[in-house]
């Protein structure tokens, strides 16, 4: 109840913020390395990609859907950018060669992503395949395509100027953070200020009612799944640029991190309830956690245990807010 009231408020559910604060304060007390500008930017740079993906995921989850394919889509589209930058498009038959500018390659990758998402959307809307399966299938397919496209080998050395996307900074703030910020702003705008956003919530809240109100359910879903995959593709571009190399097995199990961010942020997997802001907080919680565990020199095996425990706690704190009988 309480939560549902505050959803339209600026920062989704404030409980997630509290969870985050508790986490940060604890870490600041445990190590002086945590609360520094350098480390702050560090965390932000690291969560930027997950924020992009999780933002798209939020829109999908709000409609009551889910997208498991983001990790593979990220890998495939990362590979596509790299491939186009490096080898362009060759048509040996017509011995034709098309070179790509950085912008061109990036756009191509994002469009490719959108198309993959569209494919998900079609399977879900036209063939009534449950989102979980449709995107699970895509998870496998896109990974396979990545392997086929790269032959299982990374595509590297993509040039200074391309790596700027992932490694550069603008007025002291890393470019990936800028990109993530833009993505979030856009998503917040869509969810709060546009028809589309309204319909996303409506479909997740009560699909029948939405349908009876004349909302074109399928169209909305197609849009949402395309956006989700396009954002995953964007994530792929960032990762690739950051490493100056497209890894065939990049993004494995990223879907879990993204969904975790969404849920920790208080968005209900049944759809209809939640906010992009919440997801951002959720993503940051996960990022801070990973960062903190390393700063505290927790051994890798213990890290997993602690990480799981803290995520659980974060959500419990989070739930503590919505009290009911």
């Amino acid at each position, binding site marked *: 109840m309480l939560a549902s*009231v505050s959803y339209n408020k600026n920062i989704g559910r404030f409980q997630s913020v509290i969870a985050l604060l508790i986490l940060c304060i604890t870490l600041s007390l445990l190590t002086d390395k945590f609360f520094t500008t350098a480390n702050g930017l560090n965390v932000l740079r690291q969560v930027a990609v997950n924020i992009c993906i999780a933002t798209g995921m939020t829109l999908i989850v709000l409609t009551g859907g889910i997208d498991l394919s983001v990790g593979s889509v990220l890998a495939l589209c990362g590979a596509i950018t790299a491939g186009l930058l490096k080898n362009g498009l060759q048509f040996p038959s017509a011995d034709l060669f098309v070179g790509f500018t950085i912008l061109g390659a990036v756009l191509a990758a994002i469009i490719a992503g959108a198309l993959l998402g569209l494919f998900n959307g079609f399977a879900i809307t036209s063939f009534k395949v449950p989102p979980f399966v449709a995107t699970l299938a895509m998870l496998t397919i896109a990974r396979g395509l990545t392997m086929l496209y790269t032959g299982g080998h990374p595509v590297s050395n993509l040039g200074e100027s391309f790596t700027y996307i992932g490694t550069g900074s603008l007025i002291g703030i890393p470019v990936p953070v800028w990109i993530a910020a833009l993505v979030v702003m856009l998503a917040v705008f869509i969810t709060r200020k546009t*028809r589309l956003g309204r319909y996303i919530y*409506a479909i997740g809240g009560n699909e029948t009612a939405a349908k009876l109100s*004349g909302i074109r359910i399928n169209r909305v879903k197609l849009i949402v799944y395309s956006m989700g995959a396009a954002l995953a593709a964007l994530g792929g571009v960032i990762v690739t640029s950051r490493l100056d190399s497209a890894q065939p097995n990049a993004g494995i199990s990223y879907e879990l991190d993204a969904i975790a961010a969404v849920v920790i942020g208080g968005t209900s997997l049944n759809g*209809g309830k939640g906010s992009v802001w919440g997801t951002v907080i959720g993503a940051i919680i996960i990022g801070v956690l990973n960062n903190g565990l390393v700063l505290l020199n927790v051994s890798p095996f213990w890290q997993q245990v602690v990480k799981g425990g803290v995520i659980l706690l974060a959500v419990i704190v989070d739930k503590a807010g919505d009290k009911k009988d």
Partner: protein
Amino acid sequence: MLVAKNISKRFSGVTALNGVNLELHPGKVNAIIGENGAGKSTLMKIFSGVHTQYDGEIIYNGQPVKFTSTKSAEQAGIAIIHQELNLVPYLSVAENIFLGREITNSLGILDKKMMKERSAELLKQLNLAVDPGTKIAELKVGQQQLVEIARALYSNASVIIMDEPTSAISDKEVENLFSIIRKLKEEGKTVVYISHKLKELFAIADRYVVLRDGMTISSGNLDVITSDELIQKMTGRKLSFEKTGCTLKDKQELLSVKNISLKHPLLRITKLLNNISFTLSKGEILGLYGLMGAGRTELMETIFGLHPKNSSGEITVNGKDRKIKSPAQAIGAGIALVPEDRKLQGLILSQTVRANISIAVLQKLQRLGFMLNAKKEKELTANYIAGLAIKTSSGNNAAKNLSGGNQQKIVLAKWLATHPKILLLDEPTRGVDINAKAEIYKLMKSLAAEGMGIMMVSSELPEILAVSDRVLVMCEGELTANIPIENATETEILKCAIHKN
């Protein structure tokens, strides 16, 4: 003028409509009446473009039309208030009213302020005192139904279909609705009004169409027909229910409730229930009246153990003190609750009628203490399907496929199967046709005669007066009256129900 030319509609198994013909006149209120499952809602869903597969023809203003979607029907100027609520729980009242037709500014950005204002106006017309920003999930059924009405009113359509619009609201709101309907009439709009409350029909409708088993039985002007004749046409037979005054002689206390209070789930200071005490005797039927939002549902829910954290007070059953902290314990104490909202609280829509009826008594249907006895279950459910005349193709039919009224009967059956000592009914006859109503009243009487204590929430005074042995009245979470039926009158009851301020 909207005309249906022998419309037929089949669903997997059932024939809902079988060559229906009717005319709906502009500037008039056209009542569609018929028993549960007669096909009223189905027909309306065809008019409003929900069902697009059907035989027959719809002629609208002289033109044959075929709606391909709810949108196309709406654009043609047909609006509908569905029998079952169709709102988005986590969106606000305003957002629901404007769903699918949001107001946007030149840049395509939502104009929330405008929509809030418009909604506020509509709500005012309907005397619904909630903020347009409130989430639907926080409203009660009655309040939600008013929002549905507001939705339909906003789309200034020329045909407005109302499928049991008053099933969840009380007389006060009904009056507002009627004045609005009259306005619509004057504007020359076609109003289609479906209700099982004959009193209302005679009060507001001009023409009537009777459906039975998916066929048109007759139609005409209401002023030249009596309610008995109408009932005869609907049910195909005469039917009478005479008011029997207080029947029980020796009062033997069954349930006693002392100082029950309930805090609001969020605003801890405000109390939804305030020190309520009363008793219920063996064989007594206790009517509980109140305006919408009086706290009746909360009272029922609290007795049934649904608010363990926020409630206080004592409950004794048969003189024994009972700690009731969960429905399971309530049932253990011999209490049953037929909840207010059958769709959300009463039924598992996706499951069969049989599974729904037997769910609360499975432990009594076991062999060797752990295996379900399918045969016993069949028998049990068959009894109730027959006993309550539930209209379904079979016990295997999914509950969601039944008509509104028949769904209500399933919930009733589920609880009767537990043979409770105390039966709490929250709006038990909501959306139930007169025939079935009469059956339910008879049933209540006979159950009471067998010593069951029954407590019935109702927003229909006639109903309260017809069946109660004693009438409780609530207002704003407080018990304002406790009147023996002998000296209970409509005016007296209403006086106690109206808010003090």
